[in-house]
């Protein structure tokens, strides 16, 4: 059971969106975020909505799956909405109750900010739903490469992410083994209050950490034995290639961004 875990929320597929270059998808996600922040009034969320609809159609990811990503944020959303509703300044007062008052402007701001949050999370999860963690690592490494000129460790960062991904299943398996070993000796991980259960995790975490450090040492030795000496002079087996589709995706996204800016500026 533990051996089949999926990493992140990636949904494997072979659609146009899945096949886009990870670099394109990362950059277009930034364009999308910019687009959300350029929306000037709640009405114009219709543009990102149409954009998301297109993404969803092309990638086979349903709106339901996109909205799932928002679920953990529901409390943050409610707080954002309530705070903006009661504490925004405005002149058109609808209800007043002590220091709390609801104004028309307050309601609009509340809706606006909550929508912004929803669209941000839903849109960025298109990236994580359609791009495998390995492809994401590759994309990030290449995109950050220019920064290595000023000393930013882009190769090391990507190598660390790859190794982390590689060892997650191994460490989960190990945690499972240690847990069973502790349970066989009478450890109780399931009863008691939160504090008690957290305390019960200590005998699980200590051996897990010790073994992770040992693994790290051995892995470093094995990597050096295979001539690993940093990113310098290194070639790659996997190469990223832009295709025609990447161009189309970029054009559509930039057009949506421009449209949003224009709508905000021209039509008040």
């Amino acid at each position, binding site marked *: 059971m533990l051996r089949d875990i999926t990493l992140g929320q990636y949904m494997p597929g072979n659609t146009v969106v899945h096949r886009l270059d990870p670099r394109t998808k990362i950059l277009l996600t930034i364009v999308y975020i910019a687009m959300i922040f350029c929306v000037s009034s709640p009405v114009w969320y219709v543009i990102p909505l149409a954009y998301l609809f297109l993404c969803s159609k092309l990638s086979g990811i349903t709106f339901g799956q996109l909205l799932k990503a928002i679920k953990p944020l529901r409390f943050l959303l409610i707080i954002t909405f309530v705070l903006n509703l009661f504490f925004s300044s405005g002149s058109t007062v609808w209800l007043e109750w002590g220091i709390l008052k609801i104004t028309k402007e307050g309601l609009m701001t509340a809706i606006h900010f909550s929508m912004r949050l929803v669209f941000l999370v839903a849109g960025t999860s298109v990236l994580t739903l359609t791009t495998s963690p390995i492809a994401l690592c590759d994309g990030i490494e290449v995109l950050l490469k220019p920064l290595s000129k000023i000393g930013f460790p882009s190769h090391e960062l990507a190598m660390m992410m*790859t190794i982390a991904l590689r060892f997650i299943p191994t460490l989960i398996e190990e945690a499972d083994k240690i847990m069973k070993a502790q349970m066989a000796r009478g450890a109780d991980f399931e009863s008691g209050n939160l504090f008690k259960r957290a305390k019960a995790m200590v005998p699980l975490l200590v051996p897990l950490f010790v073994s992770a450090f040992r693994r790290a040492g051995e892995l470093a030795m094995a990597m050096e034995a295979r001539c690993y000496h940093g990113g310098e002079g290194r070639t790659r087996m996997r190469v990223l290639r832009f295709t025609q589709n990447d161009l189309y995706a970029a054009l559509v996204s930039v057009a949506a961004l421009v449209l949003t800016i224009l709508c905000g500026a021209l039509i008040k």
Partner: protein
Amino acid sequence: MEQKQVWPIELELASYAYDEEDETPAVDKVSLQVEKGTFVAVLGHNGSGKSTMAKLMNAIYLPTGGKVLVCGMDTTSEEDIWNIRRHAGMVFQNPDNQIVANVVREDVAFGLENLGVPREEMLPRIDEALEAVRMTEKADAAPHMLSGGQKQRVAIAGVLAMQPDVIIMDEATAMLDPSGRKDVLKTVRRLNRDKGMTVVWITHYMEEAAHADRVVVLDSGRTVMDGTPAQVFSRVEEIKELGLDVPPMAELAMRLRNAGLPLDENILTVADMVKELTNTLCPSKSNI
């Protein structure tokens, strides 16, 4: 006129101490020449220095005394270090802690990427290495979905792709189940026989050493025996004194010899024993 021969691996009175003040170094003035194309097993119980010796052979540890040469290159010379490691590939004990990438094929590519091999050249070399260890089918699998023996075969492929002159197996079967052990041994044996790969096989399993061309037994960091498996294992009493096991058939043969049966000294496996017994007991049927 005499030209010095270049061995894949040569130790000249090599010593290594983990602690400089330590009076009993882990490896103590060992001299050893590994001949090209041979399968050399290094035997010893825990703490005999066999794993330390393996790590001296590809410059993970540098000798604190004496010299270690890999294909004629001194492991202490810093500019040769990557060249040395390419020539002497090493497979470690824990299969989980030496696989770097998330996909089998990419892990095999890891060493080549480090050497800066161009991509076009890389792909055929990866395929060839995977084929050599019979893992072509699993080229796109995730490492954590493989069995221990399969993971070790991937690790071997990763080393093979770098086209080394010698493969050092540092107790590479110690953490495997019996079928995985057999599997890995068979793979390496085949590489040795078919491709003439030089192998240094570090182990404490006697049965594995029985498959070698040459057995070197270490104790407290020193070589105590060196010879063919038959020569070494016929010294049953001495081996037992070192805290090592003798292959069961070698021991049985010794007991039968002591009991008066004139058996040959080369018996290591059940097949040898059957043949020898048929020869000795019913000479008339030996040609069947």
